[in-house]
């Protein structure tokens, strides 16, 4: 079945509106991002790393691009392995000495320092002594400790060290004698481990946590924000699309059924619609989320369910009523068309011109609804979404703490999706409803 305006004709018309092209480009961009995300980051991996964060990521790191906005070069995350390894055997054991060299050239202190140790040895604990040598020749002892199995030595969280240095280790170790200014240059971490096992080995790594990470930065739980921003795209698009399709189709079919059968069927549909129109959607969703489950698919179901008898029925009914009385409908009955065929094939196509733009502009409203729910704390418990990023940012007072990127990135994505669909929708409206053109 073809419309009065063919598909090719619609596209040709649409191309005359730059805003439509921009809208289509934005939508395609978002779709491409969504598809790329689905292809490269498996669902299980996304959910897992969003739930627990990733140990190698710095806390609250800015996006890399923020470096261009401020003077100096912010530290990147680095992992440094030992460059010199010496071993010295003694009866019943082995002494390992390793040095990790750090050429510090950044203009700011790192966000954290930690040492990762992976020893291979017998049951008995080893002894470990750590030393720090600054470029200006000072020696700072970092204390000694027992070493059993894989260990993360969180230098920045070492209270005793912090007391001695006057500041947390990632400041104090890299500052000059006054403890204030950063001193660039070559630092050396010396590890001396005594194992009571002649065959013992030690792998050591110094982890320097940067101040910037990735395109979107990280949050307070060492989670890469770009993961949530990327995975939020397919979720937002799917939610918006499914909700828009579900509510539009059901609304349309119900309106058409009411108009076609008239009488009590229509009256019942109208009363149900009126009752439903005064039911507030958001509080109901909040209730469902609080009392039952905040699963995004449940929310989607409730949205569609409540959307079945939405205000759209009134609009579609008003448009369908005159169409029902059109002579061609009577002619169709006279040549034997069934009720279903008349409604689906003869009546509904007439309102497609109004339906399509409305549908397109409806999609982002559901994207926003999902984000609103997440901001209200009713986001899906496992899936990373844009709204949940905003929710976290709010909970962590992101703007007060200067983590503007934490709010801006998801907000920008939400705005872009709204903008894309709105620009396309308005242009479609002009193409399908030419009378609007001169307004």
């Amino acid at each position, binding site marked *: 079945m073809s419309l009065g305006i063919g598909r090719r004709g619609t596209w040709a018309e649409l191309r005359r509106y730059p805003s439509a092209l921009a809208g289509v480009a934005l939508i395609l961009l978002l779709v491409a991002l969504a598809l790329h995300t689905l292809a490269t980051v498996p669902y299980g991996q996304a959910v897992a790393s969003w739930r627990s964060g990733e140990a190698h990521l710095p806390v609250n790191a800015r996006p890399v691009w923020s470096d261009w906005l401020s003077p100096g070069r912010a530290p990147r995350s680095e992992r440094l392995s030992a460059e010199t390894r010496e071993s010295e055997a003694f009866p019943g054991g082995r002494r390992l000495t390793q040095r990790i060299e750090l050429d510090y050239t950044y203009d700011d202190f790192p966000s954290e320092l930690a040492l990762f140790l992976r020893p291979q040895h017998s049951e008995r604990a080893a002894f470990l002594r750590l030393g720090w040598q600054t470029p200006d020749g000072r020696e700072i002892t970092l204390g000694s400790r027992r070493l059993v199995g894989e260990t993360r030595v969180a230098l920045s969280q070492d209270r005793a060290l912090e007391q001695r240095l006057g500041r947390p280790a990632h400041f104090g170790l890299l500052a000059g004698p006054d403890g204030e200014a950063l001193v660039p240059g070559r630092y050396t971490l010396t590890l001396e481990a005594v194992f009571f096992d002649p065959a013992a080995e030690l792998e050591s790594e110094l982890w320097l946590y940067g101040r910037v990470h990735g395109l979107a930065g990280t949050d307070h739980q060492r989670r890469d924000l770009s993961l949530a921003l990327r995975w939020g795209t397919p979720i937002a698009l799917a939610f918006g699309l499914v909700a828009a399709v579900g509510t539009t189709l059901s609304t349309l079919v119900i309106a058409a059924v009411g108009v076609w059968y008239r009488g009590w069927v229509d*009256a019942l549909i109208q009363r149900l619609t009126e009752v439903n129109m005064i039911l507030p959607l958001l509080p109901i969703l909040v209730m469902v989320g609080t009392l039952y489950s905040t699963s995004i698919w449940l929310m989607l179901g409730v949205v569609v369910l409540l959307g079945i008898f939405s205000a759209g029925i009134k609009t579609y009914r008003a448009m369908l009523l005159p169409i029902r009385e059109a002579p061609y409908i009577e002619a169709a009955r006279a040549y034997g068309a069934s009720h279903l065929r008349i409604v689906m094939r003869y009546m509904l*196509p*007439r309102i497609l011109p109004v339906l399509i733009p409305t549908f397109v502009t409806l999609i982002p409203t559901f994207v926003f609804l999902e984000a609103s729910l997440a901001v209200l704390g009713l986001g899906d418990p496992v899936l990373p979404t844009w709204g949940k990023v905003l929710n976290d940012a709010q909970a962590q007072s992101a703007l007060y703490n200067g983590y503007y990127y934490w709010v801006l990135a998801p907000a920008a994505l939400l705005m872009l999706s709204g903008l894309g669909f709105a620009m396309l929708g308005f242009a479609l409206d002009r193409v399908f409803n030419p009378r609007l053109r001169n307004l």
Partner: protein
Amino acid sequence: MSALVEVEDLSVHFEVRQWGFLRLGAVQAVDRVALTLAEGESVAIVGESGCGKSTLARTLLGLHRPTQGEVRFAGRELSGLRRRELKAYRASAGYVQQDPFGATAPFLDVRRILAEPLIIQGVKRAEREARIRAALEEVHLTPVEELLGKFPHMLSGGQQQRLVIARALILGPRLLIADEPVSMLDASVRVEILELLRRIQGQRRLTLAFITHDLSTVRHYAERIFVMYAGRLVESAPVDELLDAPRHPYTQALLGAIADPDAANAHRQRELPAGEPPSLLDPPRGCRFHPRCPHAMAGLCDRDDPPDFDVGAQHRSACWLHRE
């Protein structure tokens, strides 16, 4: 000639309700009408706007349910048909509407408009195209090739009405009902369309029922005329007899109202019936024409319904004047 359509004691009333359930009354659009259409016959049903002639047509097509009485097509009663039989009946009754501009779906092209009845009636795909082309040629919508892809709004009024006629004929009906087929067309194309219907009726041996309020052209296209007034059939006769010697006072008044091209008649006083047709929600008792009738007889016309009187060969008139 055998009877194709038999209508007996047919009433079609529409209930008027408030708020969907309070019954306020019924519009008696068609009331106790009886008529018979013979196979291959061409008849005209005439009357003023709102006299029930379109409702009668729709009831003949099975689009309205009779409130009372029955319509038989080839001996079978319409309201007793099952869904499948009704669908088959719809293939044997074509319908040409008054408004050619609204009679076709604006979003379908000519090919699809003509294909729809074929699809619905289960005609095989391979056969459709040939039938569509044949139908277009029959109504002289040529060049066929050029027209197949056009949408209704690209066609002229006359072309659109030809398309509607082609659609009505494409299923090979035995009965064709044309409800004021030319009233919305330019005078220049009216004759063409009427000639077309006449020719097709002759070629196909169709039973053709014209519905019209235009008595001036009826003589050329119908063999018999039925005159309706306020839901009732008041007079029926062969066309020449009715036009030359009308017997019912309403028919006489109606014929008197025809515009006469003779300039000398411009100043002649006409006998026009005073007043308006009655409300069908609350029609007058007795003869429905009596409030406007110059010959109304008090105590008779306003009390009792006049029966149909035979006033000539195939000529019947429902008026108490003929009672002797």
